[in-house]
């Protein structure tokens, strides 16, 4: 372990005057599951396509297992790739799809057949050799695409939004399956997604990208709990923003819609009377008081959304509206719109930003 496997150095890509990847660098170890997360147009797909060899970097380099692959053709890189729209070859049956890379590599027919059967077992579709792609569901096709990508035992697996075209339920089950197979094979994997929940649930480490730059690189819990930038904080997970006014710099007191509370910290340049923004995750808010919560606020319930196991409330504190989740308790009636409510939080969970 601990040896560097995939290294991207100062990678830049411009299309004409439009620079979509701006000097990105990162390095990962063998066997890691890495997600490139960001909104569309952030450059994540372009990075993946440069690793795959479909795009030539404007500058920078890509190294896999100590070999510089920056200028190799895609068919010389020995990488496996899964596409958003499956991209199975429609004229080949499942067996020939999975065996395609093996056939190109010149593997004898018998050995190939055995490897294809193994792969089908691995993805839970044994005996599907003779089916054609059009005879299968999206989820099945995507599993075949995964098997096709890993059948030639590539050095690395590239996944380009492989779950986006699938139904919500299959998306979750297939994502767990992909992770299980990845751990089983120990194959280094780069996964591109715009879905933060997917990235958080499946990855060893996440690269959050925006406008061609890396915003933050870290383990899922670091990204979520300690967002390095405002972009990461808003893009990953739900976030409430509360506008407040500093009332006493020394005592770290601020006023939120007429209610004065003490904070853990204030920005260095805070002045009395200046506005500041406080951000917090919905789950740090509690309805009612709690032992370790040192801030209490009162407001009115402005909206109730029933989500099954969870009830999402929106609470108007005045001009500020925050949302918070409470568990659905079958023995008590759900909150009602218009009811007054007290919510509490711990001041150390607040992220304080100058307005």
């Amino acid at each position, binding site marked *: 372990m601990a040896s560097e496997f995939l290294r991207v150095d100062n990678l830049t890509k411009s299309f004409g005057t439009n620079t979509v990847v701006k000097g990105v660098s990162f390095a990962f170890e063998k066997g890691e599951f890495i997600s490139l997360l960001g909104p569309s147009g952030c450059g994540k797909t372009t990075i993946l396509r440069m690793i795959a060899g479909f795009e030539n970097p404007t500058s920078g380099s890509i190294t896999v297992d100590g070999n510089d692959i920056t200028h190799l053709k895609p*068919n010389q890189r020995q990488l496996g*790739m899964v*596409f958003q729209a499956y*991209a199975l*070859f429609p*004229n*080949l049956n499942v067996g020939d799809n999975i065996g395609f890379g093996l056939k190109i590599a010149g593997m004898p027919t018998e050995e190939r057949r055995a490897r294809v059967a193994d792969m089908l077992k691995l993805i839970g579709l044994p005996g599907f050799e003779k089916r054609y792609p059009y005879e299968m569901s999206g989820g099945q096709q995507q599993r075949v695409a995964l098997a096709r990508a890993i059948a*030639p035992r590539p050095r690395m697996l590239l996944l380009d939004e492989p779950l986006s075209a699938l139904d919500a339920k299959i998306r979750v089950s297939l994502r767990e399956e992909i992770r299980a197979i990845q751990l089983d094979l120990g194959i280094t994997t780069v996964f591109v997604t715009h879905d933060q929940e997917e990235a958080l649930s499946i990855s060893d480490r996440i690269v959050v990208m925006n406008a061609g730059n890396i915003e933050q690189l870290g383990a899922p819990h670091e990204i979520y709990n300690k967002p390095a930038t405002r972009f990461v904080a808003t893009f990953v997970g739900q976030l409430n923003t509360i506008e407040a006014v500093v009332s006493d710099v020394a005592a770290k007191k601020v006023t939120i819609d007429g209610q004065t509370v003490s904070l853990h910290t204030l920005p260095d340049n805070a002045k009395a009377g200046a506005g500041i923004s406080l951000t917090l995750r919905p789950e740090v808010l509690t309805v009612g008081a709690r032992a370790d919560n040192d801030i209490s606020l009162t407001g009115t319930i402005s909206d109730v959304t029933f989500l099954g196991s969870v009830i999402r409330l929106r609470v108007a504190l005045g001009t500020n509206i925050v949302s918070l989740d409470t568990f659905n308790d079958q023995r008590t009636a759900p909150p009602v719109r218009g009811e007054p409510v007290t919510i509490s939080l711990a001041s150390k969970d607040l992220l304080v930003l100058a307005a």
Partner: protein
Amino acid sequence: MSATNLSVASPPSRRRLSFEWLGVTPFIIFAVMFLILPTLYLVGAAFVGRDGQFTFENIAGLFTDQIIAAYWISIRISGASAIIGALVGLAVALAIIRGRLPAGLRSAVMTFSGVASNFAGVPLAFAFISTLGRLGLVTIILKTVFDIDLYKAGFNLLSFWGLTLTYLYFQIPLMILIIAPAIDGLKKEWSEAASTLGATPWQFWRYIGLPILWPSFLGTLSLLFANAFGAIATAYALTGSSLNIVPILLYAQIRGDALQNPGLGAALALGMILITAVANIIYLVISARAERWMK
């Protein structure tokens, strides 16, 4: 919706049902009068003698040296112009769609193809006479500048190769127009997937691209064959009735109906129908096998 259709008993549905037939009936009558009946009539007439009795004489009459030669040269010209037209059309379509040429080129070629595929008939003959006829521009330039005398070298516009070369002017564009949507249907991801699996571009076309295009290619090929096989205006304007191809033979037969044998004319027509039908059946059989992977 289907429920109202099923309850034929209720008056409003019945009225709607009759509306439907009212809409389709003109089309059906039209097709029967101007497509089916004339064709069937000729097929029947091929087996009727001068005396009005059933006979195989007309069919037997086809087996003269002149008529067999006419069929043979027609098949060769249609086959050659269809195959060359299909291959060249495919190459051009691949070049403009997949060859990373400037984007504007594609729409220019498609528009031009629309024009050229309809620029058949008499004017096309004029154009090739002006180009490769004895006084045509290319003939003269080759003779004066490069000292190559096409006609002394055995070329003749009124020959197999001359006519094939002329037919290509509408065959190639027709192929481009029909095959382009099929090439557009080739997803970029397929070639990318193939390349990550180690395939060279040639291997991609060998195992994936061309097999996927194959049914469309064959379908267009049989269409091009029928297109050339029935074409008469270009050949007639080029050669008068001097070139012995089947449509021109039939044309002469129709014009001289009074003097000649109407049964033989019908037999000639039947032969043409059979040959284009065979071309299409070959296509249907092969494409049914090639398309087993499609819905």
